[in-house]
């Protein structure tokens, strides 16, 4: 297997992919341990979902017109306020895990940098625009704009894994 992989000129791209996948799973695991399995998160999530659905139904009912518009508006305001408070509490609870994940990503990026600095880990099938080229050609010698550095590839992978939902 190792000899097959080493026959590829850009086998390093697979190593970067593998490290990025492991990092993404690690970050998800940290988020799950620190946020998603806690009862406070589950109850906040459930109250936000209920409040959102209630609000949409109330607003749909409000558009159709009817009596007691003033009391309906007050009810809608109350539900919106409660929704905003729950959303704010949820954001605060995610902050702690966000800091740990950022630290892990910082360490992994440093590791990747030390392993692959100055090397072209992949070949781009296009010539990137100026500002993209600064990242894709980061740390690589030579003037070939299609040489791809670890920074561009790993950022691309980590962006997908973090935004897949």
């Amino acid at each position, binding site marked *: 297997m190792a000899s097959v992989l080493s026959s590829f000129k850009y086998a390093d791209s697979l190593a970067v992919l593998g490290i990025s996948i492991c990092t993404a799973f690690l970050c998800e695991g940290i988020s799950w341990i620190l946020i998603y399995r806690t009862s406070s998160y589950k109850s906040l999530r459930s109250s936000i979902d209920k409040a959102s659905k209630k609000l949409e139904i109330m607003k749909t009912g409000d558009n159709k017109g009817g009596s007691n518009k003033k009391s309906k508006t007050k009810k809608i305001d109350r539900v919106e306020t409660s929704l905003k408070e729950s959303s704010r509490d949820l954001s605060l609870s995610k902050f702690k895990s966000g800091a740990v994940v950022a630290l892990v990503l910082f360490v992994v990026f440093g590791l990747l940098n030390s392993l692959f600095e100055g090397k072209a880990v*992949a070949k781009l099938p296009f*010539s990137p625009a100026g500002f993209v080229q600064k990242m894709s050609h980061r740390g690589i010698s030579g003037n070939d704009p299609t040489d791809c550095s670890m920074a561009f590839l790993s950022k691309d992978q980590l962006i997908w894994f973090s935004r897949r939902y």
Partner: protein
Amino acid sequence: MKEGKSVKFNLQPQNGRISPFKISKLLDPEASWDKDELGDVLHWIRQGVALVCGLLWGAVPFIGAIWIILFLLLSSGIIYGYYSIILKVDEEDFGGHGALLQEGLFASITVFLLVWILVYSLAHF
């Protein structure tokens, strides 16, 4: 006048159970869709199209930034055709064409670029 689909919000599970998502619903123009449900389906269709295009573009290989534009047009066309022709949903109930077309767009671009670059690099060098 386009026939619209009503958006149903199921607060209570039916008969005490939440009905499972059925694969046949993906091709059923009579099915009613929840906003989040439709968004998820369109998101994952985009990721699938990005994966296939990345594999194909990298294998042939197609070279040049123009192929990124073509991928965007193709994937958006597939998504538009799916929700307007196959599902026949009224986009006004789901936030308009913009909201539906941007579901999963950014993630699909990263998938496409990643697969295209990897396949191109590994298959042709």
